[in-house]
């Protein structure tokens, strides 16, 4: 069995640790605000994307499940957290209703819908952050995998799933704030969301979640189960004839991946201050795939790096030349699929391998 923390993972985790300590310190008043304070939340957001990318890579890179609907799990986790944050507003809303969020007062609702009950407690919301995406993935996957829907067909119906959810969440009647979604959050666990300390706390939490997500994913893929996943990815039929219940394995990975995406969404929402149905849009979900493809499918660490790279590029480009962003993103899709089939990390390793041809045992090689 392979080591849980290999060199690649070790380097990444160490760098993540340094970032997690350095950024809040550098942005603090004590250090004379070497970097602007908003950077903390911005990088925190990137870390959430990275976790989302790791979640997708777990399914796609190791089990061949290309989900074009992972944005849905992310958004559901985000909505669960958003509902908690809405309930925390309490009577401080514009309409001052002690229980009902503003949008419900605006829609003339008299009482809280049943599915909003319990979200005033953090532990319950935290549970839902994982349970709702997990349950959706489980039910959806159970249907899909049992019927052996796979490959492109699976991708298309996961896209239809997130599209249907988007349409649903746009409706006011759904009770999730319609178009505008959930916003105007005040505090989390009694801490002011605008305070630097809270933002730092969320940033650190995101870093910890990313590290944990990477380790969990690595633990799964490096276990004996990981071999079965690779077998399913590369030769599904063979795995089945060896007596492996392929659909159970896929379901397991898909569900774990969805839970991870939900956690990423939950950490994302308090840092950006809003969640709306746009997060369900199919375009968002496909963007996740390019993060993973750019970083290197089936490398976990590469997926996380790819997410952060693309997110950084998006921030910079949409700031400077908003017109160019979609050209750049579109070009990236084309370039990566044509010339970097194993992603940046894969290309780097190939380069290194050519320098040192004696090395053997590249076990996680991914066929394009």
């Amino acid at each position, binding site marked *: 069995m392979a080591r849980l923390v290999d060199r690649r993972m070790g380097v990444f985790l160490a760098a993540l640790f340094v970032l997690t300590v350095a950024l809040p310190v550098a942005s603090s008043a004590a250090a004379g605000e070497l970097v602007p304070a908003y950077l903390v939340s911005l990088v925190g957001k990137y870390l959430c994307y990275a976790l989302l990318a790791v979640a997708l890579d777990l399914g796609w890179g190791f089990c061949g499940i290309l989900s074009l609907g992972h944005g849905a799990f992310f958004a559901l986790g985000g909505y669960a957290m958003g509902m908690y944050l809405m309930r925390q507003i309490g009577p401080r809303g514009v309409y001052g209703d002690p229980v009902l969020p503003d949008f419900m007062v605006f829609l003339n609702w008299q009482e809280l819908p049943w599915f909003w009950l319990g979200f005033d407690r953090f532990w319950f919301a935290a549970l839902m952050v994982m349970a709702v995406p997990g349950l959706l993935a489980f039910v959806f996957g159970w249907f899909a995998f049992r019927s052996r829907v796979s490959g492109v067909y699976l991708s298309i119906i996961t896209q239809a799933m997130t599209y249907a959810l988007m349409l649903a969440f746009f409706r006011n009647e759904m009770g999730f704030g319609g178009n505008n979604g959930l916003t105007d959050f005040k505090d989390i666990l009694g801490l002011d969301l605008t305070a630097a300390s809270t933002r730092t706390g969320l940033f650190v939490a995101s870093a910890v979640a990313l590290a944990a997500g990477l380790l969990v994913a690595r633990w799964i893929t490096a276990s*004996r189960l990981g*071999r*079965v996943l690779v077998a399913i990815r*590369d030769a599904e039929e*063979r795995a089945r004839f060896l007596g492996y*219940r392929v659909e159970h394995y896929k379901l397991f990975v898909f569900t774990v991946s969805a839970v991870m995406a939900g956690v990423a969404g939950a950490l994302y929402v308090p840092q950006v201050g809003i969640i709306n149905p746009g997060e369900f849009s199919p375009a968002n979900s496909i963007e996740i795939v390019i993060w993973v493809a750019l970083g290197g499918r089936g490398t976990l660490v590469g997926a996380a790096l790819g997410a952060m790279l693309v997110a950084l590029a998006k921030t910079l480009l949409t700031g400077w030349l908003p017109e160019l962003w979609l050209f750049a993103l579109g070009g990236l899709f084309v370039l990566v699929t044509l010339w970097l089939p194993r992603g940046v990390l894969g290309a780097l390793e190939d380069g290194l391998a050519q320098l040192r041809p004696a090395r053997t045992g590249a076990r996680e090689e*991914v*066929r394009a």
Partner: protein
Amino acid sequence: MSGSLLYLSGVGKSFDGFRAIDNLSLVVFPGELRAVIGPNGAGKTTMMDIITGKTRPDEGEVFWKESVDLTRADEVETARLGIGRKFQKPSVIESLTVAENLELALKGPRGVAARLFGRRGETEAREIARLLALVRLEEARDAPAGSLSHGQKQWLEIGMLLAQDPELLLVDEPAAGMTDAETMRTAELLREIAGRHAVVVVEHDMEFVRALGCKVTVLHQGRVLAEGSLEHVSANPEVIEVYLGR
């Protein structure tokens, strides 16, 4: 039939009007070595699909050890019952090493949790070493299966079948793409295996079938045309007509 390992009777299967299998009957006893020959489209692969639960027959009976109805089982269930299958095209997990491929096939728990928390034990390591020796792949132990030659992949797949320790091996054209020496070595290997396991070999190569030296079943248009020793079926005028005579 009493004491049979595998029993097919009156099996039929059509695809969009094409009769792939028509009133096929076949009996295999434990430990038996059997060769199935027949021209292209004779229904050999469909027969294997039906036995392994990949395809449901339209009619007829398929029984395992006289008690288990295989028409109700799927691939996973038949694999777990003890039927191993080697595909015509070698099907190994190319990005895993040879040893990992064998480990994946080893008899043992197949559940998600068991695989997630399980460790490779001493006995398993010994078993893998034994299989590596048997299929002559000790040297390639840690090489990715994708880097093996065609013949080596065939052997690795046979090794994987043996790792499953099935009671019945279905082997589809094992000699395809092999050198003569490799072909003879494969026939030898299959003869060794037979006895402990029943083996059904589908093959085109007459030299190979001769080397197996076993009972032969000739399929034609989804039906059994003749059955017996190679000499016996070779003398059958119908067989000569449809198959050997061409």
